[in-house]
């Protein structure tokens, strides 16, 4: 009921706007299709339709080969780990903890090296890392998005700021470590600062590119229709840059984890980076892997959360892409 039959519409999304040759004559039947879509996805019953759409997607997903391929992919990876370390005992893998060791440690109620899903400390580390990410990411977004918007919007502002920005940007967060420790008191603020830095550049740069990518026709159309400068900013620049902004946020949260772990390895008392580093010095090798896997999972979750927020805020884009996807 959701996949409205629309001949030839599949590749005709706005992303390929310049290739809109495959259009067809609007007929009464098409109008009624459109109405069908409105009924299932319209604003009035948005809640129900979102839920229905989710189920529909899940069902499609299970019918497709994708989950099974994913399962095979994981099996191959984990299988190789298991065989290389515990069965074949390959030379390079001699010191590495095996799959079964790590899993039994991770799931153990009484872990040999002190960290498993049953230990409170495990969640404390996750919580501390996540909180640092949240603060840094929030600051980077709150400063980076407006900065990027103005960089893209005002030529004059860009001429002042962008050269400085471009000179600072290539300096890796790790190079900031000594200065961060000197500048900020305690062990918490330097880590957050380092995390913020990496995020901030990605967000600001992508936002700026987003503004610059907006077709000038949209700005002209808005001014034709009587929009003032700030109205153009509010109704054209901001929503027009949104796809790029969310791309930037995805990258931003990724690099945030990256520099967070770097920061936690240098200073800090809790956190997953700290876990990995201390486990190394204290020769708790399975715990290193637990830390790494946990980072992978938490990082994926934050990334997915941002993607979901983006889809929610860009309904127009989600629907367009969905039309393409259902072909």
């Amino acid at each position, binding site marked *: 009921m959701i996949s409205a039959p629309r001949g030839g*519409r599949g590749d*005709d*999304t*706005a992303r390929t*706007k*310049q290739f*809109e*040759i*495959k*259009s*067809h*004559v*609007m007929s009464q039947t*098409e*109008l*009624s299709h*459109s*109405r069908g*879509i*409105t009924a299932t996805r*319209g*604003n*009035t019953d948005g809640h129900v339709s979102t839920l229905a759409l989710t189920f529909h997607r899940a069902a499609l997903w299970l019918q497709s080969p994708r989950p099974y391929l994913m399962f095979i992919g994981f099996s191959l990876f984990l299988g190789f780990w298991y065989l290389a370390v515990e069965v074949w005992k390959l030379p390079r893998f001699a010191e590495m903890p095996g799959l079964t060791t790590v899993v039994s440690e991770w799931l153990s109620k009484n872990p040999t090296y002190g960290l498993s899903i049953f230990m409170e400390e495990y969640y404390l580390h996750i919580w501390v890392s996540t909180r640092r990410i949240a603060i840094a990411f929030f600051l980077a977004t709150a400063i980076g998005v407006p900065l990027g918007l103005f960089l893209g919007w005002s030529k004059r502002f860009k001429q002042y700021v962008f050269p400085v920005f471009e000179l600072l940007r290539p300096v890796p967060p790790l190079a900031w470590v000594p200065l961060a420790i000197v500048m900020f008191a305690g062990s918490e603020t330097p880590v957050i600062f380092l995390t913020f830095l990496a995020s901030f550049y990605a967000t600001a740069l992508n936002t700026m590119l987003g503004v610059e990518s907006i*077709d000038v*026709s*949209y700005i*002209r*159309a*808005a*001014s*034709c*229709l*009587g*929009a*003032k400068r700030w*109205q153009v900013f509010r*109704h*054209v620049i901001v*929503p*027009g840059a*949104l796809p790029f902004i969310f791309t930037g946020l995805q990258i931003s949260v990724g690099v945030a984890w990256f520099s967070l772990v770097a920061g936690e390895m240098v200073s800090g008392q809790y956190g997953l980076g700290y876990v990995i580093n201390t486990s190394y010095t204290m020769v708790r090798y399975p715990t290193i892997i637990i830390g790494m896997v946990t980072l992978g999972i938490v990082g994926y979750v934050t990334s997915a959360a941002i993607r979901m927020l983006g889809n929610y805020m*860009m*309904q*127009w*884009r989600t*629907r*367009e892409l969905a*039309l393409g996807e259902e072909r």
Partner: protein
Amino acid sequence: MTTQPAYTRSSAPVAGVAAQARKGGVRIMDVVKRYGTQDAGVLAVDHCTFDVPAGEITVVVGPSGCGKTTLLNAIAGFHSLTSGSIYLDNEMLCGPGRLKAEPGPDRIVVFQNGALFPWKTNIENVAFGPIMQGYMTRKDALEKARDMMADAGLRGIENNYPGEISSGVRRRVEIVRALMTDPKILLLDEPYRALDSLTKSVMHEALLEIFYKNRVTIFFITHDLEEAIFLGHRVVIMTTRPCKPKTILDIDIPHPRDYNVLTTKRFREFMDETAAAVHEEATKAFAAGEKER
């Protein structure tokens, strides 16, 4: 019965439209537009003079890249002139002392690739102008938008996003959005260029229908001669760059027109008369290496 009496001169207004004070006449006087410097620049428009009569459709035909869009942008207020002046209903839009017109809701552009905001639903797009200008509340604007869309046969897609409808329908929504603010003149910049010929023919009749209802002045740019003669009261054939009028034709095929016009003798005569001139300019443009923009 389908053949129109093609030779009767149609100077009288179309039946059903009251002889109201028409607005939107544009006078283009001695307009020159040069990009870049005097020596190294490109002369896009060269001493161009012609009138766009109020309440009529004027179609400008010329090879791609000849400078038609430059002219439209000058009227709309997106570009400045190098010299000359443009008047709208005897008021100067741009000219000596003010080389760039101010964009405004009295002259609405419908863009070549379409410019419905993809992040707004169709009805929000249509209601955009009055809400921005603040002379209607959001609620009233949406209500009027709904009515106008219904009038134009666009019921049922109000809450869809432009990305969810076909490009032909998108173009119609965009024209309705333009009409929402009751402009004096519509500036259409090859709006049907990207459409296939079947859709195009439907769009032409839809445009004429809108025109007969609203009698808004239309300035229409195209490189398609058949489209020009079919739609226009007046067809201005442009030379290749630098662009200026080569021939100005008053098409005396009576309105309202429909697709049967295409097969009439008079239509073919206009085609024959002009095809040579257009072809000549296209050849020149090709020889000069003009590319599709």
